[in-house]
């Protein structure tokens, strides 16, 4: 028997805001342009969904709230205040709990940022992506290169002391020098946190099609690897902590608490269109279309359209494949045993030793983590922990 997740384990609350002024060509998230008129109804629907969940889950304590998107900064501050307040009324939100909101540089003005701050938001994540004009153009971003610096200044004036900047590298046409300039500038601004994402060409996106048709050319894997290593080296030299594959914090305490819940295979509530949740031993996701989502919730139904039960082997695999992304912390043998009722050694001993032998993992019997110089190969390591699937390779 495995122990259920303890009630005092962190529980995240994610609120998806699926609206964007325009959809970026590389994005395959659940986002919609030109549906901003739905925002007022949508906010009320999310409040209603909280009611439905409150009924189902009973009184639960929430440690973090995260407004993700889409573009949450399209919400007027009153709406954010309404949602934070509604959450506080229905769930026991920790008084010092992290409340994050993603903002686009062009919509991060001092007036609404101050409103978010007043509503309780205490961590701001600004989608800078790049400071190179060519990059902004090819990524389809609305802002000009000078805007992010103003957005950060506005955040500081509005009272934000915990600010993350999102960057993307590996965009079409980007050079190592472009990337170095972005990194140097970002560091000179002294944010608390940096999320540096390698561009992923998602199937079906306009950018992926353009690359497939050779209209655009992305840097090859080796160049992207060099970019990643450049970031790693520069930030390390500046004393930053590389605590997750794509995330760096100026100090360990500044790591994103909400996102760490995901990587530690913790529980979270997902509210809004297309939001994902992991509660008990079930992963689920909501109806993706905002209008349909609003309708379902209005009818008093939980808008869940996908559910899967996570069996113990899958749960253990998820603990591994997520936990390996935590480059500093990795997976603790003790936490694993407490969570799953079996020891790391008995479940994955063979894999761990084989990977350690190949120099891919550090495994000392107490903690597993990816070898420092192998963090770019984390998938190669993670597949070792994926449960066996049926294969059709002929024996012979």
């Amino acid at each position, binding site marked *: 028997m495995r122990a259920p997740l303890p009630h005092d384990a962190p529980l995240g609350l994610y609120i998806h805001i699926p609206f964007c002024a325009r959809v970026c060509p590389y994005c395959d998230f659940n986002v919609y342009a030109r549906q901003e008129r739905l925002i007022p109804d949508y906010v009320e629907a999310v409040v209603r969904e909280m009611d439905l969940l409150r009924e189902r889950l009973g009184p639960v304590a929430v440690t973090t709230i995260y407004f993700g998107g889409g573009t949450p900064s399209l919400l007027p501050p009153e709406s954010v205040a309404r949602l934070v307040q509604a959450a506080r009324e229905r769930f026991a939100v920790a008084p010092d709990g992290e409340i994050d909101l993603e903002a686009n540089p062009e919509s991060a003005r001092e007036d609404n940022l101050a409103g978010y701050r007043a509503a309780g938001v205490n961590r701001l994540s600004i989608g800078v992506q790049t400071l190179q004009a060519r990059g902004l153009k090819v990524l389809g971003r609305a802002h000009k290169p000078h805007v992010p610096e103003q957005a950060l200044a506005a955040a500081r004036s509005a009272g934000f002391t915990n600010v993350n900047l999102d960057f993307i590298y590996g965009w079409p046409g980007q050079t190592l020098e472009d990337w170095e300039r972005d990194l140097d500038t970002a560091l000179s601004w002294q944010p608390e946190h940096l999320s540096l994402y390698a561009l992923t060409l998602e199937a079906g996106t306009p950018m992926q099609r353009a690359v497939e048709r050779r209209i655009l050319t992305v840097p090859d894997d080796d160049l992207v690897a060099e970019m990643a290593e450049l970031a790693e080296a520069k930030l390390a030299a500046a004393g930053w902590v590389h605590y997750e594959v794509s995330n760096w914090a100026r100090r360990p305490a500044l790591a994103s608490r909400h996102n760490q819940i995901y990587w530690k295979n913790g529980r979270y509530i997902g509210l809004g269109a297309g939001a994902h949740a*992991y509660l008990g031993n079930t992963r689920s996701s909501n109806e993706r279309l905002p209008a349909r989502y609003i309708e379902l919730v209005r009818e008093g139904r939980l808008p869940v359209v996908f559910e899967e039960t996570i069996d113990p082997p899958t749960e253990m695999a998820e603990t591994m494949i997520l936990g390996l992304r935590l480059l500093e912390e990795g997976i603790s043998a003790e936490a694993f045993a407490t969570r799953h009722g079996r020891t790391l050694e008995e479940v994955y001993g063979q894999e761990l030793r084989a990977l350690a032998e190949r120099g891919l993992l550090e495994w000392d019997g107490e903690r597993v983590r990816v070898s420092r110089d192998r963090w770019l190969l984390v998938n190669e390591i993670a597949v070792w922990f*994926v449960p066996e699937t049926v294969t059709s390779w002929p024996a012979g």
Partner: protein
Amino acid sequence: MTAQELIRNFSIIAHVDHGKSTLADRLLEFTHTISDREMVEQVLDSMDLEREKGITIKARAVRMEYTASDGQTYVLNLIDTPGHVDFSSEVSRSLAACEGALLVVDAAQGIEAQTLANVALAIDHGLAIIAVINKIDLPNAMPEKVAKDITDHIGLLEDEIIFASAKEGIGVPEILEAIVRKIPPPSGDREAPLRALIFDSHYDPYKGVIAYVKVVDGRIQTGDPILMMATGVASEALEIGQFRPLMTPVGELAAGEVGYVATGLKVVRDAQVGDTITHRDRPADRPLPGYRPVKPMVFASFYPVNSDEYPELRDALERLRLNDAALVFEPESSEALGFGFRCGFLGLLHMEIIQERLEREYKLDLLATAPSVQYEVVKRDGTTVMINKPSEMPPAGEIEEIREPWARVTILTPSRYIGAIMELATERRGELVEMDYLDEDRVRLVFDVPLAELIVDFYDQLKSRSQGYASLDYQLEGYRAGDLVKLDILVHGQPVDALSLITHRDQAYYRGRELVQQLRTLIPRQLFDVPIQAAIGSRVIARETIRALRKNVLAKCYGGDVTRKRKLLEKQKEGKARMKKVGSVEIPQEAFLAVLSRGGDGTRARERVS
């Protein structure tokens, strides 16, 4: 029973599309052998596949009755010949059953290489030749020019040539009259012991193997105990009949007559084309000449794409073998492709037909390896082994000599392509044997070319370099010693059996370089540098290195969509599981396939028919 004086046995020699089937139809119509032509349009090509490819794969026969201008009623047996060089031994047997042949040439296209070869064969068999220039109604017809070619190169007199249009029915009566007048009747001894030539056969689930025969000497009756003289198989004539045009039982066939014998045998291999049927109680002294056991010349392996279909593939091959004496196969397992069959074929067209039948009639999804030939390896200890795949090659130290099959290739081409064709033949290790001008514009080139070079893409290249104008024919010329080597491919220092090949030393460098380059793009990067080498024995002749993988990481966690992340990893894991591990290197099946099917796609032998 018909008196031999009133029998004429003949076949039609024509290049594809020159109108053989249409002419046959007209003859059948004119002699009222078939009344409703819509019901059995072009009866001679009865198999779907044949119809589609516009060729005749298996010989068929049909019996017609014709009342000539002399008032006599004659029996005309039309024996159809398989049109393709792969079946040249069957062509030869069909011709041997006849006393005459119609040579049909398209008035616009002129003589083609294959036609010339078959006419030569017919003349060798002593057949009377009647030339028919067909399609004279076409706007671009050049009947006089074609007639001159025929007189110059086949040696017929111009006034013996019949100008016709089978489509329009022009010339058909003249052709029938010529058959009666110019083709001699058969002249067998009806009282001698039975000798019946098998010129074709097929398997019937109720009557067993049906042998198509021409009775050369003696007679055969229903119920006679019979013996296949070459294979030594004994049987009984369960049913005797004629093709009118459907199989119609008769009590007896006598010398000169054409018909069928139902033998009750289970596989056509027991009643092979060219064999002689005799009477068991009163056997002939010796069989008719010309029997050659069928010998596969081209080899390829078939693997089911879905390994679960292996039993179905085996059953299908076994069923095809019932009807195909030339098809041979044996189980094979490849570390790269799993379980399949190594198959031997008469030639490329034969291989293609079998593959298509397996795919179409048996709904199998197949992987076919590039065709190859059988090598004769003479070992230092004096023994000789035949090998048809590289892995059977003895160690280099034991080899005295390697011999490979050669073919004599005849190409007819407009003279402006001589240069391009010479170049092709030279690239393929061909040697020019002969060159002569058919007229000021058309040239006949004869080369000796190793069969291995011929079966990979040669025909496509010929067509492409001559803009489709050149035609080709070949016949096997036996084995010659060659400077052949086994080329091994090493991945991360380890030889990969499935990727070895036998090649001429002069081409080994080019092939080796090409292969390692191809593999470098097909094998995914691993966690370490992977050298790919091509080697002859212990000598490396080409090398590429696949650089170590530097990055495989998902940037984001998709807003808590862990399911998606896990599925992506599951897919990666499945991809890895589908790869073949050679040492510590993972090689995807596509890499093996790309190499094993190299050059084997451009066979399209179907066009190389008469």
